[in-house]
């Protein structure tokens, strides 16, 4: 199902410009006056369509402005595009409110909207240095600009395919579970051993092992506690088990050596 989702997502595009097609570079008037090209020869070009009076545009521009600032040293050309249907003071107010410093291009007569087939706002397009459209990203209420940033970073080869996928499909935010409980009892047992409370330390480390019998560090600590209780034979078994699980456990090696019959 996940694959289906992302194959569908990958097929998304502007109505008249598919991902993989080349975007015509056009010179457009800017909000600040003068003219500016839509695209540049930077490694990545990001163009974001927005409109005033829309909460999604406000959120997007705020975060895009922050991203452009964060990535200021990278070869990324950022522009925002607004239709000339909207009043200049409204656009200026939104630009000021969101802290947008990138050029704002004015789409006279919705020419670019029509040429690309822009049906949704806000929406971002990302091209490579050859102006090939590599991503089309309509707004989403969660993780939107994070996805745009990840797509730019992927284009710049700063992140791998796997890292991009982890942003597009974040892993579930799980917590707890037997392994975590085991670690917790282990830490508590360590503190109790430091406090020379051997009985409680033993109780705690045994709870740790109940939750994760394969936790090598817990077997090592069990050995250390047993050794502190003057039970070297039992301690040796615990150190040996720890080394079976983790041959690189230095403390277990040390413990085994200290409790081996030849050392006694």
């Amino acid at each position, binding site marked *: 199902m996940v694959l289906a989702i992302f194959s569908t997502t990958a097929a998304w595009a502007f109505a008249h410009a598919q991902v993989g097609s080349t975007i015509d570079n056009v010179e457009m008037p800017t909000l600040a006056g003068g003219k500016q090209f839509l695209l540049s020869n930077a490694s990545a070009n990001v163009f974001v369509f927005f409109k005033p009076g829309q909460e999604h545009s406000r959120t997007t521009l705020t975060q895009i402005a*922050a991203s452009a600032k964060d990535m200021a040293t990278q070869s990324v050309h950022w522009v925002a595009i607004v239709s000339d249907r909207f009043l200049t003071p409204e656009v200026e107010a939104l630009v000021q409110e969101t802290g947008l410093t990138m050029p704002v291009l004015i789409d006279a007569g919705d020419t670019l909207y029509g040429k690309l087939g822009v*049906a949704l*706002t806000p929406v971002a397009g990302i091209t490579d240095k050859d102006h090939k459209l590599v991503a089309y990203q309509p707004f989403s209420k969660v*993780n939107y600009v994070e996805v745009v940033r990840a797509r730019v970073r992927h284009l710049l080869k700063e992140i791998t395919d796997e890292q991009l996928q982890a942003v597009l499909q974040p892993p*579930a935010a799980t917590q707890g579970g037997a392994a975590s409980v085991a670690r*917790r009892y282990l830490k508590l047992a360590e503190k109790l051993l430091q406090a020379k409370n051997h009985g409680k330390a033993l109780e705690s480390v045994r709870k740790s092992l109940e939750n994760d019998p394969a936790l090598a560090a817990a077997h090592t600590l069990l050995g250390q506690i047993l050794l502190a209780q003057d039970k070297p034979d039992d301690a040796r078994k615990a150190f040996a088990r720890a080394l079976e699980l983790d041959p690189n456990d230095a403390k277990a090696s040390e413990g085994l050596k200290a409790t081996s019959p030849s050392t006694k």
Partner: protein
Amino acid sequence: MKPQNPNRLRRGAVLLTAALAVTLAWAADAPKKDAKKSSGPPVPKLKKNDLAPLPAGEKPASSHAPFEDGDCSLCHKSKDPKNPGPITTNVNAQCLGCHEDFAPILARKSSHVAAKENCCNCHNPHNARQRKLLVESGSTLCLSCHEAIRTLTVQAKVKHEALTQGSQCSNCHNPHGANVEHLLVQLPFDLCVSCHGKDDVKDDQGKKLTNVKSLLDANKEWHGPVSQKDCSACHQPHGSANFRLLAQEYPPQFYSPYDPKLYGLCFECHEDTILAQPQTTTLTRFRNGGTNLHYVHVHKTERGRTCRACHEVHASKQKHQIRDAVPYGSRGWMLKVNYTQLPNGGMCDKTCHDQRVYTNSVPVALKAK
């Protein structure tokens, strides 16, 4: 049940001193926040909790093992329960010393300010009337800071049972940290479908709801937000004034006079010009030459067809979420749309009207009704 520890009552009283010390340490730890400097949503003001152990004789729902066992010195400078003194380091370092698995959780992309700042914003380090040492029950605790959400849930005409059932807020949010914004445990779709991918889910009025997973499995042309796993694009999961927890207004009927306000939901993303301009050669391909057929269908003072007349909202078998059939009459009869996409336009046949063909280039002469 654990036997009553004879020392516990005495400890409970004297550990008030310890609790005071912890409270002071917490206050000293708290960073001075300036909400205006944050680029994220406003940070709710944190309230300070009473971190004293429960009164002697009161049975706690949860108790911290070191406190229960009288091991004060595991956290405090002294092992004397009568005078344990301050804790040995700052609160979160103290907690993470044993609960080390929470360090990477708190470091996730979306982290809870309250948790990062101080575990004791939500947990009592001694014992509590709630599970997991929480100072209040799940949603009560969350909503004590998240007042806007509380107001929304109280005022909502349409309620979402996910907020009051099971783990309440934690059904969808991880209060420590998550990989999705707003502390969501997963992307919205993955969370929603864990309940709405079943056949027996009902709304707050008892009406059976669609099994979204089955719907999507059978219909492979998905609405953009569905493909993006963003149910929250259209639904407000905390409660809404609109049917089906819709985030904005959307006409519930088949017919409706055209009023842009009624389409607030659609216009959150879609361009409103698609319904407002009678003539276009750029806004849509559903046009006969320059005649905007969206306008023709929807923009009427009476009996304007709403979006749902022709489009499915979640998924369809045809592109652009065009429906196979539309409900007609009160008996659930479905009238076929019989839409066919053509190279330069399309056609609907024997449906609400006789066959009508449209092309994007040279307009086709439409038959009079």
